[in-house]
């Protein structure tokens, strides 16, 4: 009889825990998405779904994908595609890495607003970030040692930029790694010789200006037309097709309401 009571009690406790977690959504991953866009989406979603709470940790795309593999988040934000090794690791743990594009982005190359340079070519961007050139005079500037600001290695933007702009070469030895887009923009804004890259949503920071690449500025139309060379999709990763609150939030994100916020924050809507 005691065992029966214990089983019932445990069942009730489990049910109680389950219902307590039902309105809480754990999201981890990309700083590009998680610093601005997803919190604003979450606020709007909460307004429509009172009682819902969010646990958002924006520490880089790698952490978001790892969270799906480990099962520690319902949604993994990522500004890059999952690597083959990550997809393989997920499969080995019985997880299915399902990507959903939630917005497009253009990685903008920014310099200090006092820098007289008017634009860069793809080749020059590669030369700058790999350290092939170290002085602004080599790329048409007025001179001065180039200070490079990049994201840290867990960032999807860090690896995307390497692939899109640097032919997968290593960053220059003296480049400084920042925790997020806002930190990069802030540092470049303070340093007349600074250069860095940020998502389009972070180009409005004070003291910086965006460089056209081969004459093309990162814009909604250029990203949709695939004419901006550093354009990329951004993702929510889930374990298979999402369900419950995760599905509701994902549907909201890619729906009209969510995409309006996407545009307001500075990303490019998916349609």
């Amino acid at each position, binding site marked *: 009889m005691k065992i029966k009571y214990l089983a019932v009690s445990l069942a009730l406790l489990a049910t109680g825990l389950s219902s307590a977690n039902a309105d809480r959504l754990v999201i981890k991953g990309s700083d590009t998405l998680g610093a601005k866009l997803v919190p604003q989406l979450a606020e709007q979603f909460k307004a429509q779904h009172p009682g819902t709470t969010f646990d958002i940790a924006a520490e880089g795309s790698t952490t978001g994908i790892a969270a799906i593999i480990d099962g520690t988040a319902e949604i993994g934000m990522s500004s890059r595609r999952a690597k083959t090794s990550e997809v393989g690791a997920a499969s080995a743990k019985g997880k299915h890495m399902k990507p959903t594009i939630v917005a497009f982005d253009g990685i903008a190359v920014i310099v200090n607003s006092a820098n007289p340079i008017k634009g860069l070519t793809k080749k020059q961007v590669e030369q700058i970030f790999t350290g092939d050139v170290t002085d602004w005079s080599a790329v048409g500037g007025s001179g001065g040692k180039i200070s490079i600001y990049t994201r840290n290695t867990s960032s999807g933007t860090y690896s995307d930029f390497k692939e899109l702009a640097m*032919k*997968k070469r290593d960053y220059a030895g003296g480049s400084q790694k920042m925790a997020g887009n806002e930190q990069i923009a802030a540092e470049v804004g303070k340093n007349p010789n600074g250069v860095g890259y940020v998502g389009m949503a972070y180009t409005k920071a004070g003291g910086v200006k965006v460089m056209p690449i081969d004459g093309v500025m990162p814009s909604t139309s250029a990203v949709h037309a695939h004419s901006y060379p550093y354009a990329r999709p951004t993702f929510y990763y889930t374990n298979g097709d999402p369900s419950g609150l995760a599905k509701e939030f994902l549907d909201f994100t890619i729906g009209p309401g969510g995409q309006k916020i996407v545009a307001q924050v500075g990303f490019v809507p998916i349609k």
Partner: protein
Amino acid sequence: MFVKKLTFAAVAFCFAFTGIAARAQEAGALLDLLVRKGIVSDQEAEEVRVELSKEAASTAAGKWKLSTPINEIELYGDARMRYEYRGGRTASNDPTNPNDWYERHRERYRVRIGLRGTLLDDWFFGLRLETSTSPRSTNVTFGDDSGVNGPFSKDSDRISVGQAYLGYKGFPDITLTAGRMPNPLVTTPLLWDDDINPEGLAQQWKHTFNVSFGGGGGAAESYSKEGYSKDGKGVVTTQAAAEPFKLKIDVFANFAQFVYDDTNPENPIGPARTTDTNGFTQRVPTTDAFLLAWQVGARFTFPNNIYFQLAPTLYNYTGTGDSFNTFFQGDSNSTNQTGINSLLVLDMPVEFGWKLWELPMRIFGDFAVNLEADDRAKAAGHPGSGGQRYAYEIGLGIGQLKAKSDWEIRGWWQHTEQYALDPNLVDSDIFDSRVNMQGVGVKAGYALADAIIFNLTWAYGWRSNGNFGTGGVGDIPINPLDQYQIFQADLNVKF
């Protein structure tokens, strides 16, 4: 959904029929194109990408992770099983055992396995592990163990680093290599055992000219960018773009600075080291020994598969290292056999090839002369014998071994004189790492499969000049080596 499945099938087709490195790029490019054409949506393309990644991750190749700087990597190697007979006869005037044969029958194997590849920014590398610790042999003899651990011991079954090199090919036509490398020089076994992987620096330059006679008024076209062969051994000529041409000229120059022997220490604690070897006290030189080589050459390729190659080379030595600070004598086992004093060798390897009834044929030869043989002979106790300065070989080869059922046979005559060459570098099989030997060699091969070759080698030699020993250290502990014979049967597997 149907479009997604169709897309997956099309892209999977690309995966199945292309190399692993090319797959991701080609599949990615194909998906991008399909998205731009509006055939699939971005979302559908991403789902296909994940499926492809999942497929790739489940393959053996997908589990092998390479670091980002590696552009291309190749696993290669070979294994060989050998039976060998080797025998040498004492001289007829040997005081204890005249005309007696010393003979060995050995069953041997060798394994060589390597990785070579290219890195970002025009760098390349190579690493090869080999059986045996000998610089001139990769063979291990079955049963040739100490016996301490019983039969089938592993005492002699050792793996050593045969090659470890890094190089750069970012300058047009130029390849720079450092480390323990495949021999960068055009050579023959007359001077160099082909198992030797020298250590040091090498600079290679190669430029191809295509000359068109007739119609074009003798115009010459120059091709500056050449491909690099991953084994670091040579520069691969790309096919000329201009048609037609009658003559292709590959001009090359190879320079090398090999560290022959390290001195340790160069500056010892206390007084400088001395030796009484030559009957009086003298200081032991404390400098590293270097072998320096300068080679320039050209290969002329005419129509109808006719070619001619010439690669004159000058070798000289500086310093003595720890092990080569005694003059070469070479007369008997009790005298020095390895000294590198007074060696300034001019070498002239040459080859002429053609096809007869679609059968490749070639005449090959090598001529070498030691320009300091007078001093070397004098130091060896034979003043006035500086005429023993020449070495040469000439041979004929028919056939080639490229694919299953191919065959090849070569025969040659070889002659070396006592003060002509460095005895530490000459081929260890023909004739037992010795100089002052001459004789004939024959080698025949048949390809049992594309990667499996069966070879038979036989050589017979005798002392070239009876007034001298047969300098050098080989497997036959006889000096002078009055007669010598070797037979080898090899089964080679290459991968």
